[in-house]
């Protein structure tokens, strides 16, 4: 614990009615780290990211970003903290009332108050950084394929030069080749920005490629965390079962309608 933590999550718990989604999560993300949170569907990975971003309020627990407590911030302070963050959503969450370049420039125009003409230039540069030509900027998000939407979402997430970027299942729903393209883009963008990233995925190929550290979420708790190099010799039965994709093991999939 010599490095000060970029994000420190302590004892976060969240229940929805009778369902305890998170039951005391502790997680530390250090500057420049690329942490990938793995875990089965419905284990609360997305909820964890949304709690860190302040989109969902935790029942108990504390989260500090750069040493500042962020649980219970008012809306204005939250906006200030969230300016440090960028997020690529699972289905990209592009604003379909705006064109592609307006989406990419959104954080610059609305968040930073940049003039539209200048923001458009930045948007085109960011589109180029994710391998999209400038004329894509004029399209509407509805005209894009799944892979292109992800790229535009990535361009939007990096446009404000955030210190921390979250990736919510960046490769879900993409073909293997496009998945790898996105993985490479994530690695490339993160390297150029020097950002700290937290990704959630159940795609182990993607996890191994983009992670420097792995944390495994199961039963509402982090059951294992460590550097990527140690992933294959954890001796942890949960991790073993998950990374090898076995149906038998300590993790019981809840099979019900």
């Amino acid at each position, binding site marked *: 614990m010599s490095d000060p933590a970029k994000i420190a999550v302590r004892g976060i718990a969240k229940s929805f009615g009778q369902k305890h989604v998170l039951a005391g999560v502790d997680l530390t993300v250090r500057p420049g780290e690329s942490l990938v949170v793995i875990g089965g569907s419905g284990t609360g990975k997305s909820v964890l990211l949304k709690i860190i*971003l*302040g989109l969902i309020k935790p029942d108990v627990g504390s989260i500090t970003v750069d040493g500042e407590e962020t649980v219970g911030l008012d809306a204005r302070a939250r906006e200030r903290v969230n300016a440090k963050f960028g997020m690529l959503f*699972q289905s990209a969450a*592009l*604003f*379909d009332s705006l064109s592609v370049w307006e989406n990419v420039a959104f954080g610059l125009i*609305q968040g930073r108050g940049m003039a539209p003409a200048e923001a458009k230039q930045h948007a085109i540069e960011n589109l180029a950084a994710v391998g999209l030509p400038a004329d894509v900027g004029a399209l509407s998000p509805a005209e894009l394929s799944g892979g292109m939407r992800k790229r535009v979402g990535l361009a939007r997430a990096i446009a404000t030069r955030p210190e921390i970027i979250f990736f919510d299942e960046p490769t879900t729903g993409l073909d293997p080749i496009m998945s790898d393209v996105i993985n490479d883009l994530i690695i490339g963008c993160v390297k150029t920005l020097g950002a700290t990233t937290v990704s959630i995925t159940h795609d182990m190929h993607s996890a191994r490629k983009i992670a420097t550290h792995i944390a495994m979420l199961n039963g509402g708790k982090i059951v294992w965390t460590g550097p990527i190099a140690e992933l294959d010799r954890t001796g942890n039965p949960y991790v073993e079962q998950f990374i090898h994709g076995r149906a038998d093991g300590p993790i019981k999939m809840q099979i019900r309608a």
Partner: protein
Amino acid sequence: MNPLATIGRIFLAFLASVGRIALFAATAISHCFRPPFYPTLVLRQMRDIGYFSLPVVGLTALFTGMVLALQSFTGFARFQAEGAVATVVVLSMTRELGPVIAGLMVAGRVGASMAAEIGTMRVTEQIDALMTLSTNPFKYLVVPRLIAGLTMMPVLVLVADIIGVLGGYLVGVYKLNFNAAAYLKQTADYLQIMDVVSGLVKAAVFGFLVAVLGCFHGYHSGGGAQGVGRATTNSVVSSSIMILIVDYMLTEMFFATR
């Protein structure tokens, strides 16, 4: 199951949602007065709510005025009061039918589209995305719709009043053979400023209600296409009911003491 317990549960759930809507409206109103402001979005909503609702509101107002003249003529003929047709048309339109009919049409046209649009944005995480891009969804999505609803409804209703009176005039003069000048004089003679103003105040309140309920149901939309569908239905049903209830309360406030 205990029927009393069921009634109690339903009543508590009703009170809880009334409270949630009131809180939502209060939050939205407080954001109206704090920067940043989005004037272009307000103008776009004003165009969508006001300008694009003109055809449907105008058409319903025209036929409402026409049928009002026809009905009151045939009804009043039973006690030789046909002369009151023009007055009945103008008072009914301005005080009551203009705001209510326009309110219901706007609830169906605009409230539904607000709930569907914001609900879809909720379901596809676009509202979450707004927040991660340092943009407050209340200021960006709700406030422009509230302001546009509040300001454009009175304008729409003023147009509806005029078209409705015109509809009554057309039927009165060309079908019921009233003298055109006499019809117009009678329309103007008994009309007081208060009749029109009370209708416009109602309109502003209805516009606000439709926008709040449309945004509220969209904002709290459940998952998937079904959730958005339910949000849309709830928004139209609740704003239509609220329009009729609030209409009675406002009417009593304006005219009961006279």
